[in-house]
């Protein structure tokens, strides 16, 4: 299981990286943490003509709070392990910090990046769902300059995103959490660290609710009935959390009945149909307030 031949470019600037990609038309791939792409290359499922290594590109692993908007701006090359440990992330976007321990294992998190996970777009991965739940905005650089795509419009399907060949996801912007927002992530996987058979990331209170399923279909999917149920009952979360969880579960069941659910080795579509509402209810039960921010 040895990777096929490829050209290797290690640019130091974003412009250089985009120029490298351009040289190979559609046959070059950016290399972020490599924790998904390198296995696919070892299995020779993908054979890019060139890899443009983003690990040496300056400025792609920043984490900063926008002083005006309060948005958290994370560089695409920020490692998953950093999401787990960053005080800034924990304070301003605790759902990201809460999601990180669910992602694979320590050694994988030390290399894997937030941008790599989002660009890879595995439908069972946590971060794409979290990005949708947090209304993140994806900043994509390419030969034509920089553009921004909302997370909800970023994921096209299995391993497909709005990032076109020749482009690079450079930054993810997480808007400031409204006061009173609650967030949670819950998933079921065959083993600790495995991709989810069914998972839900959610945010509610202080604004419209977001309930995003992952591992269910070919992309992170918003469960709109469940969102409506949460919106209706969010105010009672503290006093009637159990009832709220139950009503969200019921709504989620209606949501998933309309979906074309994944059917794979780890779980059948039928299992997902039954389990998704349970997962949604447990996510509601696990929801925590995000704390007072300035």
């Amino acid at each position: 299981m040895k990777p096929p031949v490829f050209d290797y470019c290690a640019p130091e600037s974003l412009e250089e990286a985009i120029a490298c990609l351009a040289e190979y038309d559609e046959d070059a791939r950016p290399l972020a943490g490599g924790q998904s792409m390198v296995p696919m290359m070892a299995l020779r499922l993908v054979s890019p003509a060139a890899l443009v290594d983003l690990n040496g590109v300056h400025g792609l692993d920043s984490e900063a709070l926008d002083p005006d908007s309060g948005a958290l701006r994370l560089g695409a090359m920020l490692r998953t392990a950093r999401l787990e440990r960053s005080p800034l992330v924990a304070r301003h976007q605790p759902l990201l910090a809460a999601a990180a321990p669910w992602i694979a294992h320590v050694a994988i998190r030390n290399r894997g990046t937030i941008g790599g996970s989002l660009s890879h777009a595995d439908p069972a991965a946590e971060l794409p769902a979290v990005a949708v739940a947090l209304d993140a905005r994806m900043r994509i650089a390419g030969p034509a300059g920089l553009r921004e795509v909302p997370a909800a419009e970023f994921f096209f399907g299995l391993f497909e995103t709005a990032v076109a060949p020749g482009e690079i996801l450079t930054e993810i912007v997480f808007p400031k959490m409204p006061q009173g927002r609650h967030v949670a992530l819950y998933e079921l996987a065959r083993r600790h660290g495995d991709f989810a058979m069914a998972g839900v990331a959610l945010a509610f209170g202080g604004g419209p609710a977001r309930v995003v399923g992952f591992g269910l279909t070919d992309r992170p999917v918003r469960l709109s009935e469940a969102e409506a149920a949460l919106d209706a009952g969010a105010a009672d979360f503290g006093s009637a959390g159990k009832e709220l969880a139950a009503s969200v579960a019921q709504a989620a069941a209606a949501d998933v009945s309309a979906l074309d659910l994944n059917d794979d080795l780890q779980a059948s579509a039928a299992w997902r149909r039954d389990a998704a509402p349970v997962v949604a209810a447990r996510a509601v039960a696990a929801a925590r307030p995000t704390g007072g921010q300035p």
Partner: protein
Amino acid sequence: MTRPLVHGPPARREDAALLSGRGCFVDDLQLPGMLHAAVLRSPHAHGDIVELDVSQAAALPGVVAVLTAADFGGSMPRIPIRLQPFDGLERMLQTPLAEGKVRYVGEPVAMVVAQDRYVAEDALECIMLDIAPQPAVIDADAALADDTILHAAAGSNVACRYTVARGTPADAMARAVYRRTARFRSHRHTALPLETRGLVAEWTAADRARLWGAAKVTYFNRDALAAAFGLAPEALELIELDVGGSFGVRGELYPEDYLVLLAARRLGRPVKWIEDRREHLAATNHSRDVVCEVTLGLDAEGRFLAMTGTVHADLGAYIRTNAAVVASRAAQFLPGPYRIEHAEFDVAMLMTSKTPVGTLRGPGRVEANFFRERLIDMIATDIGMDPIDLRRRNLLTAADMPYAIGRLVPNEGPGEYDGGDYLAGLDGLLEAFGWEERRALQGREIEGRRHGIGVGCFVESSGGRSPETARLSVRADGRVALDIGVCAVGQGVQSTMAVIAGEALGIDPARVDVRHGTTSLLPSGGGTFHARSVVIGGACVVAAAGRLKAEAVRLAALRLNRSEADLVWQDGSVCQAAEEDGTGAVLDLAQLSAIATELGQELQVLEVHHPKATTYSYGAHAAHVAVDPATGFVEVLGYLALEDVGRAVMPQLVHGQAIGAAVQGLGEVFLEQIVHDAEGQLLTGSLADYLVPVATDFPAVDAITWERAASPSNPLGAKGAGEGGIIATAAAIGNAVSAALAPLGVSLTETLITPDVLRRAIRAAEAGEDPRKDET
């Protein structure tokens, strides 16, 4: 900085090198001029090879050769059967490369040899292989239908079929007041040692070769390979390096053993082949794909009268070296540790278009224990008896021993269980497990999860009657060298053999140097399978030690001019039998060695030990689970395995084997599954698909080792110890999960338990599908 631990038992002698990365596994071996091989494997389950064009691959820079079936010069050897060569199986043997037809995904078709493994894999992508697909034969039932025949010359997919019996089963079954029949299945999985297979071959002359990476049964493999290449057995040296686990699958003969030797001979350079993990999942033996329909008849008091059944084993596309063991032992051990006088089983070994099957830790036993123990729990439910009481009424006790088990395997003589109190084993387990306290939780729902407890009882054979060879030599410095024909597969055989030799000679085991691992050490050897290393190898060492002591006394008598009767061996020295004045001459090992040298001899003995009987370990497992019916997730809250191994030479190692085996067994039940689709395509080709336990999965496992029923058939009293931890795992878990879900009407009949499996079972029960539809 080095700091000693405050406490701790003595380390294994194997440990220091392995802990520091200084071990030598086969991929660590580098030889000058060595080339690297990669194997082209069939992407189809069944089909005819229409075209195989390797010219483009051969032309790739860095590629040295591409071997195809033609390179064997018109006649390819067939991989022979090592164990249980029943009539008919010889029609289904595999050649190293597919000849005209492929029969499973992963079957070798060609081998590329290149300067580098990366280039070799590039070349695989350049080979044109055109296969005209044929229908796949996907399971035992499809095989029996014979709609598609895999081995045309055989005319059927039934490789072998036989009936075995003891007593008068038909009469006894007719007397039964209660009978229950159920159909069970054990799913297909594999052993997955963490080190994949690997080999390095080198020809040192036109008629001499070496093969590194051998394991388990080096002497048998040497003889078979030597025959295939026209060599004298001693002209082929099989060398064992550090071995990263076997669990039965590694070390058997496989196609690649022939291919690397052929490639190295043709190219005149050493050739290395290291199996990668994707290959491993398709190419290394699978196991445990058995369907069983079994009937148990009881009298009015709940005593087992008779057991009958059919065992249909899906052995894959070819009969490998030990495939028949899986089927034959599954039938032999169906009656298990119970008093069942009358039994009859129909056994069919079937060919399908899947990876060939071989033995896997507890072969046949894991299956049989699951089938029988589930059936016993089903019966207990039916007749309203506590499942423990039902077992207690029928388990064999010391008063029954030795217990004749008749001839339940063709070509084997009548057997007998050699001792033990199987009922006491269950009672000991239940007490240690806190069964009575846990019973209060049986079937109860607590915080949304249903609790269940279950047991599985077992008896298992080990050792057998194959011979083993050992040599003890005393060196000039008084150290003792032990050469032994058993093999190391990671179980600590060097440490264990040193302890046995040290004990037998009355010396510190640290003074014993254990050597094994190359066929040039000894003229013959057995190997490591059927938990035989201690049982037979250990007995061989004890016998050798006895002869070495006698030889030492003889030499001492010569030197001291005394009668041998006046001298005794004591603690590694020869002393006077009666030291009345306390000044008796004492000759230590170094002196004895010097005496032998002066006489132009060596103080050395070669022992070939022929064991006379098979030993039988026994015990029971208990499990406590909590099942979440909403998701099908199961947590194992408690797991305890008890086994009486007669004698545990190194208790810590035996305990380690037991808990390691139990976790492997839990993995088999909850995670590990080889999946093929309807076209026979392998869907579990990576470790992202084939799941094994990790550190977070099964923390609540423990094991108890008893040394109560010493085996009467060997001087150590030892019985097999490496399999007892896995052997009833599927049984105990199947019973515990079924008990937990019994209020929902669920009763499991397959070994695999996943969230999906439980969801289906719960839904089927809810829909009113009769869970007892198998009842007669």
